[in-house]
């Protein structure tokens, strides 16, 4: 996994950067595992501390699985690989996930940090 195609600002360099989409793409794969929609949650990057909706991460999907990276520092936040009879899920890069829950009070409708 090379970082060299990302500039300091995280913008893709000219040349042939890998294509990326965003964390919305993770919804189907994660729905197989979690009872809530994790793409609406706020994730905290273990590398730089940036908090952002999981749906707004950068997702690279031209691999055997899906790799989500932090928009701020490009560190890997999450990897998910679906095999025929199992799923590998690597969440090391995510220090914390905040999930808005209905009816628990306190949280704004837009979720923590809004």
């Amino acid at each position, binding site marked *: 996994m090379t970082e060299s195609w990302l500039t300091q600002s995280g913008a893709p360099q000219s040349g042939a950067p890998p294509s990326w*989409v965003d*964390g919305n793409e993770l*919804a*189907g794969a994660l729905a197989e595992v979690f009872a809530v929609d994790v793409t609406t949650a706020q994730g905290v990057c273990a590398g730089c501390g940036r908090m952002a909706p999981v749906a707004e991460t950068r997702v690279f*999907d031209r691999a055997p699985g899906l790799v989500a990276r932090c928009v701020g520092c490009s560190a890997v936040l999450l990897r998910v690989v679906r095999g025929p009879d199992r799923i590998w899920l690597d969440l090391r890069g995510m220090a914390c996930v905040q999930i808005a829950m209905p009816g628990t009070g306190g949280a704004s409708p837009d979720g923590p940090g809004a």
Partner: protein
Amino acid sequence: MAAARTETPAARTLELDVPDWPAHRPGQHVDVRLTAEDGYTAQRSYSVASTPGTGRLELTVQRIDDGEVSPYLVDVAQPGDAFEVRGPVGGYFVWDDADPAPVLLVAGGSGIVPLMSMIRARSAAGLRVPFRLVYSTRSPDITIYADELRRRQRDDRGLDLAYAYTRGVPPGWRRPPGRLDGALLREAGWPADLGPACFVCGPTGFVEAAANLLVDQDHPADRIKTERFGPSGGGAA
């Protein structure tokens, strides 16, 4: 697959009958998986185009020439064919019809698809929430949903449309061909102090540029929801 209709030379709407399909929320997508005879599978995400809770599930798919899935869906699949869909999924890029805030939709090419589901949902529910759509497309002849949008512009009260044609413009069009810019967004969008909910969908580069323009116009980041297709903008999500 129950039926299909051609939208443009490169895009087709597939009407699917899915057993026990739950109503989607406008903006959600599905994952489509194709399996070859040798067991090889390919999966892509496509936005739902249709009105929630009514009739068949509709996906509008734009062909990516070197794609693995979209050429099949646009050119090959016939009524009677079957393939796997998973969904509806994605709770982030979703318009909440209980939110009274005005809505700004910004579409790049086939990024119109999930935004069209929002426009159709608004109309079907008889809501008057003011909607503005700014639609960047190459030229009028390859504009997905051009006829329906023309009709809705006339009939759907509170829906305003503006186009940024990037290559070819209709005769007498006052804006020269060019990309979406801040001036057009300012003119055809909503001022930030009205607190609009903004939805931006299209190819990754388009979404990055359009979201930055909105931030430059003081829209708060948490009111700008985005969905990126990748470099060439064929699928969704």
